[in-house]
């Protein structure tokens, strides 16, 4: 009998399809509607940091250079108050085989898929991760399907994503290009069922474990070169794996004093699933449209429990504007000789004003770069923005309006960050956890989990629960 492939029927089979395609049973770790053993899930995959390093060495992933941005640092010191302006270094992740830190994630997933005998791997992503999965699949001679959200209903595509389609195909992958909509996951499920491929989810423990080496290498490199740990590691944040994996790696290396700062491009007001808004944004990742919802409710993904849980690790979360990231992309190309992709420079745009807050002898590490190419480039993206009715001009970046106006700074000293109130995000995470599970009452073990998952104390969690009129059982 033919399987029912309607939207409803396939979504109803989601758990079953996931179990088969991930080869992992989350039930082992889940203890109730709220509580699950996060650390057991992370180590249950068996991929220790040492094992991950070995896997990555074999496929040429990781061990990327840490470059000191001397001219950018000099420009910061020109406007910072005397004695201020920390040294800015960047981890040149564009040196990975497919051009971004996403190779770290894909390396572990594809190693696992090969080991378990899956005929191939599938990922639903419009980002660099698709290229990473396709590249790792090519190395292991496995099949590969990448499902991408590319076009609006006029069949107009973001130049950045079309470049990603090209790159995935260059590695021999099949690419399914879709119009806008969250039903991307329905298509992914259908294809997993049809092919029996491994679900190379961005949010499995494999994917996140793969990023820990990035944080670990940063600490090793800083200690070897400067004899100290960075004050800040600034991380471009979207779905939260980047923050989570990097921060875990920093901790494993013992850099307990280093602050983890998330940075996203501000796209407030643009709806991620809107056909109309789709081509009014000039960034397809590293933005608040993913950064905020994923931090405040991680379990919205294609896996039962998300391994990416950024609120556990974030010390600070800031936003920058699209125009500032394009500006900084031009700056790093022309004064440092590093032509890199815009989205990966989100954390660099944030690191500049952050470095100005710190004394000269401190270090700020920008945790990644990504490759650039046709389409995935400030010229192509700004031209596209203009053609889609977005105003582009120079001026004060504070005049930026997402989807309407991109303002390229006139002066380096205009680069700024806007603080995202983490306390508010932590509170909204707790609200989501109780409301999405329909709970009016929770117990002490659940309070403890929520505290760990949001980096609050149990007392703070209880205060928030009280405001939400949720009772805590003794």
């Amino acid at each position: 009998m033919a399987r029912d492939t309607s939207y409803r029927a396939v979504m109803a089979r989601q758990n079953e399809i996931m179990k088969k395609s991930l080869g992992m049973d989350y039930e082992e770790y889940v203890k109730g509607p709220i509580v699950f053993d996060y650390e057991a899930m992370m180590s249950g995959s068996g991929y220790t940091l040492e094992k991950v390093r070995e896997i990555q060495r074999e496929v040429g992933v990781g061990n990327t250079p840490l470059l000191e941005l001397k001219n950018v640092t000099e420009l910061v010191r020109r406007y910072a108050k005397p004695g201020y302006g920390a040294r800015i270094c960047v981890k040149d992740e564009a040196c990975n085989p497919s051009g971004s830190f996403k190779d770290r994630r894909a390396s572990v997933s594809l190693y696992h898929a090969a080991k378990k005998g899956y005929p191939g791997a599938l990922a639903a992503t419009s980002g660099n991760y698709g290229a990473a999965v396709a590249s790792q699949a090519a190395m292991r001679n496995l099949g590969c399907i990448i499902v991408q959200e590319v076009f609006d209903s006029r069949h107009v595509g973001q130049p950045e994503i079309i470049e990603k389609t090209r790159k995935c195909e260059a590695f021999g992958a099949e690419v399914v290009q879709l119009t806008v909509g969250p039903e991307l996951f329905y298509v992914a499920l259908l294809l997993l069922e049809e092919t029996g491929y491994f679900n190379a989810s961005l949010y499995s423990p494999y994917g996140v474990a793969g990023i820990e080496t990035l944080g670990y290498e940063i600490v090793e490199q800083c200690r070897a070169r400067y004899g100290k740990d960075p004050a800040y590691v600034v991380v471009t944040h979207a779905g939260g794996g980047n923050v989570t994996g990097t921060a875990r790696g920093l901790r494993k290396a013992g850099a307990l004093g280093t602050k983890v700062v998330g940075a996203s491009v501000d796209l407030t007001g643009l709806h991620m699933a809107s056909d109309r808004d789709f081509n009014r944004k000039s960034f397809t990742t590293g933005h608040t449209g993913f950064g905020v919802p994923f931090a405040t409710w991680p379990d919205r993904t294609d896996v039962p429990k998300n391994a990416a849980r950024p609120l556990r690790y974030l010390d600070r979360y800031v936003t920058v504007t699209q125009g500032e990231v394009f500006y900084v992309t031009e700056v790093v190309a022309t004064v440092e000789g590093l032509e890199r992709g815009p989205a990966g420079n989100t954390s660099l745009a944030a690191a500049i004003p952050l470095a100005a807050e710190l004394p000269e002898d401190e270090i700020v590490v920008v945790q990644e770069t990504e490759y650039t190419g046709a389409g995935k480039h400030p010229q192509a993206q700004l031209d596209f923005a203009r053609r889609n009715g977005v105003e582009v001009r120079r001026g004060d970046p504070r005049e930026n309006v997402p989807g309407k106006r991109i303002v390229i700074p006139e002066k380096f000293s205009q680069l700024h960050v806007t603080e995202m109130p983490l306390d508010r995000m932590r509170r909204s995470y707790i609200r989501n956890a109780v409301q999405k599970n329909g709970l009016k009452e929770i117990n002490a073990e659940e309070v403890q989990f929520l505290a760990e998952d949001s980096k609050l104390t149990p007392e703070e969690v209880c205060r928030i629960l009280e405001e939400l009129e949720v009772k805590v059982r003794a």
Partner: protein
Amino acid sequence: MSQRCAKGDWVMIHQIILEPHERSKDIPEDTAKVPLEAWIKGWANDSAEVGQEVEITTPSGRITKGRLVEVNPGFTHTYGPAVPELNPIAQELRAVLKEAKNRG
């Protein structure tokens, strides 16, 4: 551009995956009004005219069908024209760095 594919040609097909009424209920109004569409590339299993239905074998070995839209589909995305708002930045900052160096 050829209007016809032969068996074995690299082609692109188009499919309607979900009609508007079949879509998720949790999507914005503008998206809910339009179908979910897909474009997939592979090698044609038969000859066909652009606009006709054709079966393909994809790089992952799947067999699927759809309306033929292009033969030997390529990529035309570019680096775009020079952007006057970005163009002067190099000169501006290099002048600042030069001045800093001269001051010692």
